[in-house]
């Protein structure tokens, strides 16, 4: 079963690398990682999608916590979350099926962001399974390229917050 973990970490040189090194060194799975700055420029949020049994999840969370650059680790699989992914999907079209492809994409609320005389590129956002479904539906028409951001997720309502002590700037 896939699990989503949200990690707040120091937004600095090498911090992301420590997480990926940990996952490869310990043999943990990574399905996707996305990382970006938060409202605090010195803190980054990483959303990790991993899988494993409860025992492995327990170790993943503990080992992540053990890193000195991680500030907060939350298993989002245990709470109510909003989960999104963005994808760019480029599809080839022939004379006569462009409207069909566009209407299919629009069923997934896909937006046309680029078009040439042979290809059409959609932007799609939504939960990862929606992106999977769109990709599957478009596959028969001839997908040229897909770029997916990986999952980002936040807890619904209440935020995953740092303690006041943690959010103090380190002045670095």
């Amino acid at each position, binding site marked *: 079963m896939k699990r989503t973990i949200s990690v707040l*970490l*120091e937004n600095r*040189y*090498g911090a992301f*690398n*420590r997480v990926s*090194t*940990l996952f490869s*060194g310990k043999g943990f799975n990574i399905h996707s990682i996305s990382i970006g700055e938060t409202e605090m420029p010195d803190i980054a949020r990483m959303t990790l999608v991993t899988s494993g049994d409860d*025992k492995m999840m*327990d*170790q993943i969370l*503990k*080992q992540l*916590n*053990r*890193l*000195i*650059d*991680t*500030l907060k680790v939350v298993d989002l699989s245990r709470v109510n979350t909003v989960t999104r992914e963005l994808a760019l999907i480029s599809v080839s079209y022939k004379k006569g099926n462009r409207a069909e492809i566009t209407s299919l994409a629009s069923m997934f609320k896909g937006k046309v962001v680029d078009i040439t005389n042979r290809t059409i590129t959609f932007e799609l956002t939504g939960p990862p399974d929606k992106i999977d479904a769109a990709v599957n539906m478009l596959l028969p028409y001839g997908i040229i390229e897909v770029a997916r951001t990986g999952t980002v997720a936040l807890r619904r309502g209440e935020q995953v917050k*740092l303690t006041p*002590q*943690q*959010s*103090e700037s*380190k002045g*670095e």
Partner: protein
Amino acid sequence: MSNKKPVMNGAEIFFECLRREGVEHIFGYPGGAVLKIYEHLYDVDFLKHILVRHEQGAVHMAEGYAKASGKVGVVLVTSGPGATNTVTGITDAYMDSIPIVVFTGQVPSHLIGKDAFQEADIVGITRPITKHNFLVRDVRDLASTIKKAFYIAASGKPGPVLVDLPKDVINSKCEFEYPDNVELRGYKPVTVGNQSQIKKAAEMIKQAKRPLLYVGGGVICSNGFAELGILARENKLPVTMTLHGLGSFPMTDELSLGMLGMHGTYWANQAVTNCDVLVSLGARFDDRVTGKVDTFAKDAYKIHVDIDPAAIDKNVYVDLPIVGDVKNVMAELAAEISAPPELDEWWSTINGWKEECPLYYESGDGRLRTEYVLERLLDKTKGNAIVVSDVGQHQMWVTQYYQFVHPRSHITSGGLGTMGFSVPAAIGAHFARPDIPVLSISGDGGFQMNMQELITAAYHKLPIKFIIMNNSFLGMVRQWQELFHAEKYSFTDLSDSNPDFMKVADAFGCAGITTNSPKDVDDVIDQMMAINDRPVVVEFKIVREDMVFPMVPAGGSIGDMIVRRLDPNE
């Protein structure tokens, strides 16, 4: 009064930070990227720099120093090969939770990533083998980074920290200010155990019929010897120790069952297998301890005290975790157990196992064996020495036959099993504790892996006893070949390729003594102990084909030991 802060260059800041951290010894080797530091070292008088012959030696010395003293060991090396040569030592320190700080030189910032001369991405290389590491990118961050490095290395679960110092950072100047405190928002080790968990643990121990304390290196890291003594003695609890736990509780005490695990005592392993409450104190359920995990203390209620939350449930699922400093937790546990459990029956069972299968080695045939040498060493030193063992058969025999009575008197490479550890680590231990004898014990294989450091010991006239248990075999590997690999002694016989160790001793400025007879052992020990103006290399030529017993085959249950070699005539 002026509040103006002094302006210093990176090298001056480096030494001022070391001075404030109370560093007295530094193990190092100069090179291009750290020339500025060595330029200033020339005039530094508060610390002693020990010039090694290989950077791996420097790290093992720092480890030996840290283990013997409880202080942070410090290493200084140059960039590139200087840095990469530290990798084995750093990994060793990481596996065995030894607090060291390794300073590596780095090429100037503008050359990083350009494949410059003597450039290596040592921060990248050591990321999975350090507790944390830093690349200092601005001289203004240098002081606070060094402060953090020492704090991280020594606090919580200790470990190695590496600080990479680009040449231009060391050469630039800034105002010096040393922070009083370290504030790391992502790092807050938990030192106080959960009260209700401790109460529950005390209750379980009180009600236990067959309790057992399983003690690891954490008790030594936390200096919790007195607390362990009280907890064990007030309740008459049997104590078994891991390789790194040895010395935390006197092995001569009637409550000690010795070491457990693959080459542990039969009675310790039986006690683990049959106990009803297992209290793990600063130990991590290593595979050499547990054997087959499913049968390890199968029916016991398991309590796990550890400062590292990630150690809980990592290898063995436990019933009651207590995260905290084991010293504090043991004190609270002892206070909480109001009435000691009734254990007469348990003790008579344990003593039965002891009688059933005591430690045994062949003797009386006039041939020299490690076990006998160790017994004589113990008798002559009364345990008042630091014994630094290497890796292999002799290392296991040390745990069986040298009864450690003092904390920090047993130093070895456990987790990584680094051959070549003993010679340099013994040198480090001597600098930490010049007041007591240091015995380095190696096999003939491991001795040769870092024997270049003999000259380091000789130059400083250190009276270290470098003992070689020479069976001209890579003995432990040979043992596995005999037992599990069809007696194919593939590349383990060194009899045609060993050097003359007495000539080695002489060439490196050490005294040399060699014997192959049990009759000489006492004399040899007296002679070596009497040499106090230089190191001595002592070669004991031992029986070639001996094996270490008892033994749990890899992956086997620890209750299921091979206790001695099958005699074809029996």
